[in-house]
């Protein structure tokens, strides 16, 4: 049994929250650069140039790429041979409090959804834990902005809707979102499982590098096809028209019930942020 102090988790969450908000992952930068090189529409090129300039400034000055520094999603894969000393929930929230406070990040969380008073420190985190083999903890911090979160959708399709129904729902979601989620977007998709599992997979799909395709060839081909179809919609960067509407479609899937075909689409903006550390 390996001991990990809860304070170690607090420090890691705080550091990752600031890092993730100020430095765009290399894979996202790479895809934006490729998109810029392949973009034929002049207005769209101008926007992509500004987006590239923006993350450059954020890198150089270590300031947030976007003012919406998000709700702080925290994913923990905890090895079953790890013992955490202290209160894990409190440790994670303390990390958010520290990171968002000391890192000059925006506090964007309200205490309850109807009475809407800001918590003032961006807590609580959206915390997900999973028990896995081993004696390590994999910690991912993913600040999630709500311009794109608000454009996300879930459908409980019928098995008879099949793959065509899934494609149509994903395309409809992206088309209806239009300029609102700050395209170019990353499209996270969860297919199968249950209502909640599909939504969780769609969120997790956004953590996969945008340069990496699904390990299953069938789903990898579906990702490519959907990306091509989305980029044929013509929405373009910021919705002003152009080829680059999405940077990637990342699909996760899971077994499901004989009666169901859940599909969740979690949209992320071009500032697709996440950072992982192994403790």
């Amino acid at each position, binding site marked *: 049994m390996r001991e990990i102090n809860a304070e170690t988790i607090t420090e890691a969450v705080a550091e990752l929250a600031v890092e993730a908000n100020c430095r765009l992952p290399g894979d996202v930068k790479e895809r934006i650069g490729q998109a810029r090189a392949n973009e034929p529409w002049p*207005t769209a090129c101008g926007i992509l140039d500004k987006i590239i300039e*923006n993350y450059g400034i954020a890198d150089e000055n270590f300031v*947030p790429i976007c003012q919406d520094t998000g709700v702080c999603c925290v994913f923990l894969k905890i090895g079953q041979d790890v013992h955490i000393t202290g209160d894990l929930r409190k440790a994670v929230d303390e990390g958010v409090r520290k990171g968002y406070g000391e890192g000059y*990040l925006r506090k964007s969380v309200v205490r309850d959804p109807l009475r809407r008073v800001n918590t003032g420190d961006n807590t609580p985190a959206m915390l997900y834990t999973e028990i896995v083999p081993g004696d390590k903890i994999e910690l991912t911090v993913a600040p999630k902005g709500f311009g794109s979160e608000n454009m996300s959708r879930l459908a409980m399709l019928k098995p008879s809707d099949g793959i065509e129904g899934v494609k149509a729902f994903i395309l409809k979601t992206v088309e209806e979102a239009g300029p609102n989620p700050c395209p170019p977007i990353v499209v996270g998709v969860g297919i199968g499982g249950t209502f909640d599992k599909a939504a969780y997979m769609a969120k997790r799909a956004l953590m996969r590098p945008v340069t990496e395709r699904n390990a299953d060839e069938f789903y990898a081909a579906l990702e490519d096809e959907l990306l091509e179809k989305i980029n044929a919609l013509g929405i373009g960067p*910021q919705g002003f*028209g152009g080829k680059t509407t999405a940077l990637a479609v990342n699909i996760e899937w899971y077994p499901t019930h004989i009666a169901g075909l859940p599909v969740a689409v979690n949209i992320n903006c071009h500032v697709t942020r996440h950072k992982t550390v192994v403790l």
Partner: protein
Amino acid sequence: MERHITLPITRETARTIRSGEACLLSGVIYTARDAAHKRLVELVEKGEPLPFDIKDATIYYVGPTPAKPGQVIGSAGPTTSYRMDAYSPTLIREGETGMIGKGKRSPEVVEAMKKYGAVYFAAIGGAGALLSSCIKKAEIVCYEDLGAEAVRRLEVENLPVVAVIDSEGNNLYEKGRREYLDSVEER
């Protein structure tokens, strides 16, 4: 080539700005998001004065990150505008001539823009670090309890925006997409 616009924007000037025009804004603008808009409209409904002069005012839908030491303001890009749709027609009627945000607007907002003379600009969403450098001065006007959502008076210099919807109701989101798709067909 961008068009330089000095704020405030009068009703007359607002009517000369065309959808698709890239503009650089300089002068004073005010910030407000959902919660502040709600309060402003409640004041109007009660017949009480607003905390800043709404006549010819431009409102930027932004909730900046806190300023680091030595910074005027933190990252400050636009938030999605449709959440302000319920409130904007009232503020336009009261004198607002410019709105800066990103994303679609409702038919009611567009109608008010046409009726009174107002323009809707978009700034680049997700480019908060870049846009921040155009803000030369920032001070809180009211609603400090709202934190990032407080109303701020900003002095901006050459803030890059694009006129998306003009006072005739022309819409760049529709036109830009159509023109791009036409160009693809031609090829």
